[in-house]
């Protein structure tokens, strides 16, 4: 059984890369294949699934059914759902991507995919698509759970919320890539989890800034986590696009992207 069967003639005479049997699949197919591969890999990973879906869902149920911590004035479920959506974005775009990219770099996966027909740019686009797919799934699960628990969103704010989630995703992925491209994989694992827990507790994500001491509240306003939490609450509670949170996310995103593109190393 010969596994090389048809390209003998073409390769013997090939001095350039024009042999007709040996071309890359179209860019769209390569990117979609990689996005699908990454999405399925993430969904099959128990820890990732826990951080992406189970913990946010538990947080939502816990917040809605309990009376503390205080989420401020308004219906509890209406305050809780946007915060948990922000948490879901941070889990997937930041923690999940930082850890998986760091280990892919460590094990040479980024190098191998970089020299495959997919290429480096294709890999970046595919990763972005995989993150957005998982976020969409998170949105459906958390939003659905929220509705079941009595959430009354301002549907007018869906566009603003979507825009903030997109900008927030870009910002947090850039931050993830900045970490993953410069630190050792173990360091990224520890740091990404630490940052996730810190932002969860003190970053103005789930607990609105209005319920935090004023010093901390001012800091959280300038953090991407606080901006995303504030922005999503504003969108879904009042149907408005909040300018300052959007600006905070854009500035962080621009800085993180510039730094990441300068410092990212594809190999360990």
């Amino acid at each position, binding site marked *: 059984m010969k596994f090389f069967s048809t*390209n003998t003639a073409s390769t*013997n005479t090939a001095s350039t*890369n024009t042999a007709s049997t040996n*071309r*890359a699949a179209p860019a769209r197919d390569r990117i979609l294949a990689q996005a699908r591969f990454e999405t399925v*890999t993430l969904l099959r*990973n128990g820890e990732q699934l826990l951080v992406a879906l189970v913990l946010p869902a538990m947080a939502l149920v816990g917040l809605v059914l309990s009376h503390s911590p205080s989420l401020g004035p308004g219906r509890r479920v209406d305050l809780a759902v946007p915060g948990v959506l922000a948490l879901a974005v941070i889990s997937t775009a930041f923690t999940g991507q930082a850890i998986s990219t760091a280990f892919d770099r460590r094990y040479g996966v980024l*190098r*191998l995919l970089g020299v495959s027909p997919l290429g480096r740019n294709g890999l970046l686009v595919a990763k972005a698509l995989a993150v957005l797919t998982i976020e969409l799934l998170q949105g459906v699960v958390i939003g659905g759970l929220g509705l079941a628990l009595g959430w009354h969103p301002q549907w007018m704010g869906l566009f603003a919320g979507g825009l903030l989630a997109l900008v927030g995703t870009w910002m947090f992925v850039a931050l993830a890539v900045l970490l993953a491209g410069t630190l050792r994989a173990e360091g990224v694992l520890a740091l990404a989890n630490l940052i996730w827990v810190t932002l969860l507790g003190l970053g103005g994500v789930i607990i609105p800034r209005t319920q935090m001491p004023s010093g901390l509240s001012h800091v959280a306003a300038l953090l991407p986590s606080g901006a995303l939490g504030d922005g999503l609450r504003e969108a879904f509670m009042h149907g408005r696009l909040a300018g300052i949170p959007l600006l905070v996310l854009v500035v962080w995103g621009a800085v993180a992207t510039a730094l990441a593109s300068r410092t990212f190393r594809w190999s360990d």
Partner: protein
Amino acid sequence: MTEAVSVRDLAKRFGATTALAGMTWAARHGQVTAVLGPNGAGKTTTIECAEGLQRPDSGEIRVLGTDPWQAGPDHRACVGVMLQDGGLPNSSRPVRLLRHLAAFHQSPADVDTLVDRLGIGAFSGTTIRRLSGGQKQRVALAAALVGRPEVVFLDEPTAGLDPHARLDVWDLVRETRDSGCAVIVTTHSFEEAQRLADHIVIVNRGRVVGQGGLAELTGERSLEDVYFSLTREAAR
């Protein structure tokens, strides 16, 4: 015969370390070219320049007539790569991964045949993380061949394999060569170079210290003798 890979006067420094100092050699279609040399001789750096992973400071490198640095997807589709550290995602399973990599190509090799030839079926359901070194090695080789490349770079393809697996790999490498592919193998094994290579390139301290066919290179002596005399003398 056409040159599939040509490396001309390649130089590369990393800080104060000189990795390549005028490396020059070529590899042809339908031949196995073995690059032999001590650790730090510049084997991997040269191969990485040829794969487009690194850019040389000076000199010229052509793979299938193309500068590999930032070459496009159709070029990369013609070049197979087996990295020393494997480059396989830890949480995936061999067959799913190979099918996925095949999807990057318009007319890939038949994954089932490749899996069968390399005995990957026996551990197809195990995640890469849990495979032994030799098993990973076989998956990495399959990954390099899945696009039916015209040039393939194999970094120590049989390191860590048991004798049977090594023969399987050598058979597959010969068959790949016989299909017209240019196979470039880096190795520390004289046996591998002797049994497999049509052309042997011995490198030391960033340059070529000897090359040719086995008979041409060694004459009456053993490859091991020639290797040590070339790499030790040059080191003094």
